[in-house]
């Protein structure tokens, strides 16, 4: 393990678990959160190095999570990973200071590459 603390936030449970599993195969240990509230609790407990964040979630949506994380934990690198984002969301995300903005579906190897880049270990 590389020791990158990774948080995966996505309301598709199946997807997020499988993604975590696959990332582990690539030496990236990730925790998962299924909605915005969980994600924020997680961050409050232990701030991750990199956060993969979906935008479209029930409750507190990804953009709000991003806003709060950027405000309260500016050290956390956030990579948006969404199927719904439009240009405006993308522009807003960039304005809030995301590390990258990826549109689903994303190839796993590219995602890994971006995570490593975000953690600075690449």
């Amino acid at each position, binding site marked *: 393990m590389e020791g990158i603390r990774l948080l995966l936030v996505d309301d*598709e449970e*199946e*997807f997020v678990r*499988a*993604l975590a*599993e*696959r990332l582990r*195969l690539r030496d990236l240990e990730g925790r998962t959160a299924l909605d915005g509230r969980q994600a924020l609790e997680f961050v409050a407990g232990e701030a991750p190095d990199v956060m993969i964040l979906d935008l479209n979630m029930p409750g507190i949506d990804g953009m709000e999570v991003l806003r709060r994380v950027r405000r309260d934990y500016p050290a956390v690198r956030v990579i948006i990973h*969404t*199927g*719904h984002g*439009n*240009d*405006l969301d993308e*522009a807003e995300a960039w304005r809030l200071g995301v590390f990258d903005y990826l*549109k*689903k*579906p*994303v*190839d*796993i190897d590219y995602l890994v590459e971006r995570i490593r880049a975000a953690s600075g270990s690449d």
Partner: protein
Amino acid sequence: MKMYSGTIRKAPEGSKLRDLYYSRQKRLFLLVVALALVVPLAGISLFSYNYYKSSWIESTSAELSSLAESRSQIIELFLADQEDALAGIVELYGVDYLSDQASLSQVFTAVNQSGVITDMSVVGVDGRHLAYAGPFTEELSGRNYADADWFQSVMADGTHVSDIFTGFRGTPHIVVAVADPERTWALRATVNSDFFNSLLTSADVGPGGDAYIISWTGELQTPSRLGAADAPFTFDAATPGAAEVLHDERFIYAATPLKGGDWMLVLKTDIDDSLGGLYRARNQVIGFIVLAVALGLVAATMIISPMVNRLREADRRRMELNDRMREAEKMALVGRLAASVAHEINNPLQIIENQAGWIGDLLDDESEGKVSDVTEYRDASDKIRAHVRRAREITHGLLGFSSVGEGLASTDINNLVSESASFLENEAKNSRIAFKWDLGEGLPPVETDRARLQQVFLNIINNAIDAIGRDGAISISTRPADGSGVLAEFADSGPGMPEEVRASVFEPFFSTKEGGNAGLGLSISYDIVRRLGGDIRVSSAPGGGSVFTVTLPSDAGKSKNNTREER
């Protein structure tokens, strides 16, 4: 293969029907003008014509009537004169003197200086000639008049004027006779019929008219030019001295009784003769009406044609605009639909990709031989992921329909076009395609979404390269657009496109390219340009090939087309 997409507009249907409508409107207008000219003119003319005609007939009737009256007076006077002359002779000379042939000849010569009387004779009470002066001595010598109508009549009444008759001499004549008061003898004179006739022929009844005297037995007393005693008069109605007038379609008749009702003087005039002037005036008026209508129609045509043309042009523009608006709305709707579908598909695509990827990952951990056909499984997993990537191309392409108009900036169109082309320079060079430049100078900067516009230019140039295939040129020019704004034109030297392709080239999912092309490029370009308040059109280049023209308003950022769609 080439790829084009999207339609701007289809030819409006029923344009023939509309042409028909316009020409019908035009004909209707001309008809109204013609009627407006013809009806009042013809009405006035017809009224005037009838009015003048009846007053003509009235005045001609009055003239004819007074003519008939004056003629009848002249004739009555003439006959009375003859009677008076004979009566004077009878009274003056007595039978003894007049029975002498030489004396009678002397008297005859004296009274007949005017030549009104042809001959004169003295007849005894037994009807035998006592003396005769005149040219018919041979024919009349030894004749006995005892049974002649005139003789019996004069012996009964003292005076007599006969109808015209042939008698013994064999030529038509009128006899005037006066008996002495004792009825023992009579003086008889024959009136020169030529002189008598001249009393009528001098009456002016026109070239088609007639004047004659007819007896109550229906015999003509004077020659009739038309040879017909057709006057529609009866003898009993007439008052002596006063004319009766009537007319039919062709003639005006005036009649006066003569000789105590034994004769009737008839004057007849042809209406057409006296109305000749009126008919000429009528023909001139008809000519004038025809001319006025013709001039009116010419003037109306000169007015209506440009009017109808302008109307037609305005209608055509309006319909074209409507079509374009509908098309733009349709495109926007399709775009929104496409973008939302793409959004919904992206999540499941990600899961498919992930699961397939996981299978691949798991296979990596399996030791060779433990799972048979590992390679096949891995191939299948890779293929799934490859096709997910292909699907992603489409869905991410569709997302291009989403918001436009972020990041508006003052943009130099020449700069943007050059930059876009430079991205594709290598690709063009590999296909031996040259760029030909004709960039306008001093073009105003355009307030627009630079990145989006670049996407449009890249797409058009890419299509042009694909359309040419190999060896050719793409001419890129910029210039000021009509009104404000600028225009960029991309003409390729490719084969061009058939009309049905041209019509569909901006439609989403329309593609002539084989393989995994989604057919969204031009559709998205269309959407972007429209939302930037501009316009994109495609036409055929004169020498083959296609020309894409992008027009942009100078203030695209403020255009209402640019308002963001919420998604």
